[in-house]
């Protein structure tokens, strides 16, 4: 008899049978329970003995301490773990004192929380150009054994609701998509179950001894806070550039804001994501009805992704994939991310850019028609490009029309800004692992290139007939030519970007707008 090929399954069966055969005896149960209960009683007595009035007076400095239970005192009495650099707590700066004390206070306070309501938002951090707060956000209602999440994708209306509630010995997840008029259920704790925010907070407090730096004090929603920054590699297998920040209210010592920085977008290579949890409502009174799944009449039972995929298929047809490796895409993205400056030709203009500005010069018959400067107002932005102020820098566009001696100044807020050209390039390069086909290697502008054709239907709501063709230098992995083909009134149009120069030394005044003296200002509206 050959032993079963699936050794894993055989061992699993063996273990299951063994496990089923093992039972504790009554005698053993009695012995263990008696001694465990005795140990528990001793522990309780120790806890209660520790609550002596003089110790209370020593540590009862803030109202939140009143919530802290005997565990705090146990830490004081028995020494505990001093995991914070020495410092004074006598000047009101409690965070400089031993975090074994105040960290435990926070943890104890968190343990008393029955329900927690908070907001989740995300911030796009672009390699080129400003950060951008997402329009959509979520409101989350977390209790010890259930939660509800309302997603406001358009910033105003609930588009998707998810509930996770106990159901017998299991957990039931119900999600309703108001956008696709459907709902679905899963009976699996792992599916869609967001980690308990209180547990997350506890984890962060436990990590404070490993904090990379204290961020200083800052005000959020009228609450003065002290912040800590911890590299995400300190608690998991996270890549470089991932870090978290947690901000505590100076008065209550409770977390006010948690930021997770440097999360990569799987889709848009030019962006990273920061997730922010804030507007915490501790000890929230949550109406019980809020946790009862409600499925609107007429909604069909299906996952929103299925409906979306079916709609896409109906509109766009089948998708074809050439199987380009993600590794090659990563090489290309890595090369692009090293770019500081560039210049290239577009359909009717010559474009050049740096990190914080770009410029377009339009020509007709080699005669300059128009200059456009786009300049980010980066004043006040930190070197890291992201101190969460929710103050997104604006963009100013200056157009100079040489044909009629006029100029125009346009100001944009974060919501309406034109995209930095490099963001577009990065976005397209990030699509190559979705390419429909790989083009044969060819020489373009004297450079050996590898090329890809990507249907624009692979993203957004684009129709079948739009195509991108991208060619990259085999050696440097940087773009050499980019084409966009579309159909207009049955006429095939191709827009070309070419003559790329990567990291050229641009004249120092490239991004300083020049308005000739006699030119008149026209239609300078803010946007």
């Amino acid at each position, binding site marked *: *008899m*050959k*032993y079963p090929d699936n*050794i*894993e399954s*055989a*061992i*699993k069966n*063996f*273990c*299951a*049978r*063994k*496990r*089923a*055969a*093992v*039972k*504790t005896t009554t005698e*053993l*149960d009695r*012995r*263990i*329970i008696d*001694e*465990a*209960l005795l*140990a*528990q009683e*001793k*522990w*309780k007595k120790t*806890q209660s003995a520790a609550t002596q009035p003089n110790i209370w007076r020593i540590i009862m400095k803030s109202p939140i301490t009143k919530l802290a239970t005997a*565990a705090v005192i*146990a830490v004081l009495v028995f020494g505990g773990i001093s995991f914070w650099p020495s410092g004074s707590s006598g000047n009101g700066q409690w965070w400089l004192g031993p975090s074994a004390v105040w960290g435990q206070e926070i943890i104890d306070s968190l*343990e008393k929380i*029955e*329900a927690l309501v908070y907001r989740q938002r995300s911030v796009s951090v672009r390699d080129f150009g400003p950060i951008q707060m997402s329009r959509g956000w979520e409101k989350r209602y977390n*209790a*010890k*054994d*259930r939660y509800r999440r309302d997603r406001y994708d358009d910033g105003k209306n609930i588009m998707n609701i998810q509930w996770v509630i*106990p159901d*017998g*010995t299991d957990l039931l997840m119900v999600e309703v998509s108001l956008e696709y008029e459907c709902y679905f259920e899963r009976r699996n704790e792992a599916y869609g179950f967001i980690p*308990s925010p209180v*547990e997350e907070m*506890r*984890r962060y407090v*436990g990590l404070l001894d490993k904090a990379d730096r204290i961020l200083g004090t800052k005000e959020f929603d009228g609450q003065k806070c002290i912040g800590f920054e911890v590299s995400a590699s300190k608690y998991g*297998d996270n890549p470089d550039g991932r870090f978290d920040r947690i901000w505590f209210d100076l008065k209550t010592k409770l977390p006010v804001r948690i930021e997770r920085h440097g999360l990569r977008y799987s889709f848009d290579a030019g962006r990273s994501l920061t997730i922010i949890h804030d507007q915490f409502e501790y000890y929230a*009174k*949550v*109406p*019980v*009805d809020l*946790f009862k799944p409600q499925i609107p009449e007429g909604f069909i039972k299906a996952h929103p992704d299925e409906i979306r995929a079916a709609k896409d298929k109906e509109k766009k047809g089948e998708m074809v994939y050439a199987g380009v490796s993600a590794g090659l895409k990563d090489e290309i993205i890595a090369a692009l991310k090293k770019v500081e400056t560039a210049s290239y030709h577009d359909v009717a203009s010559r474009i050049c850019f740096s990190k914080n500005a770009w410029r377009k010069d339009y020509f007709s018959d080699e005669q300059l028609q128009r200059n456009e400067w786009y300049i980010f107002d980066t004043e006040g932005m930190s070197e890291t490009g992201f101190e969460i102020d929710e103050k997104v820098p604006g963009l100013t566009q200056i157009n100079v029309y040489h044909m009629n001696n006029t100029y125009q100044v346009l100001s944009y807020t974060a919501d309406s800004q034109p995209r930095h050209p490099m963001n577009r390039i990065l976005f397209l390069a990030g699509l190559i692992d979705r390419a429909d086909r790989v083009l044969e290697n060819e020489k373009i502008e004297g450079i050996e290139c590898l090329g890809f054709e990507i249907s624009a239907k692979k993203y957004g709501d684009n129709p079948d007939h739009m195509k991108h063709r991208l060619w990259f230098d085999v050696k440097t992995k940087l773009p050499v030519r980019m084409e966009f083909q579309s159909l207009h009134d049955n006429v095939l149009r191709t827009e070309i970007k070419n003559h790329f120069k990567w990291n050229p030394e641009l004249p120092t005044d490239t991004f300083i707008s020049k308005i000739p003296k006699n030119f008149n200002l026209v239609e300078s509206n803010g946007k």
Partner: protein
Amino acid sequence: MTIVSFETDLADSGMLEDKLLVWKFKRGSADALQRIYEKYKNDLLALAIALSRDRATAEDVLHDVFVSFAQYADKLQLRTSLKSYLSCCIANRVRNMNRTKPQRTMQLNHTGTIGSDCDGPERLAISAEQSERIEKAMTELPYQQQEVIILHLQSGMRFKAIAESQGVSINTIQSRYRYGLDKLSSLLNSEVEK
């Protein structure tokens, strides 16, 4: 307007979910401690037997783990499920015992009869024979490999949780698991082909 009373809701519905049990236990609930013991005692004893290969040792391990669990309720910080946490405690305790005591020899007689009531006599005999062979093959493995196989396949622990509990990388744990299975496969097949 009704306000949710989570504790009452759960108690009324008869569902003592682990998180609530832990919450009560950390506040000194004797009921919660007993319930946790009742819920996991057999699985944990089976795990201790599988790791120590001795019922008497396994009973001591279970005893020590629960007494210690009760003693340090305030220090309990769950990052995995309660069952995984307790399984880790069992594994750690057995490992510590292995360090301080000489290796025991396998005592098959103490591990209990293998086979369920619905198995017929012939199948039961085959199962018993297979089980004996697997058990014997398991003893040939280095302890670290046995441990990860048992924790994963018997206790259902994820590799990540095992790695975290032992302070090693998940790759190390997965390698131990794979090497262990390969060796088991080789041992069992070479034995039947003789």
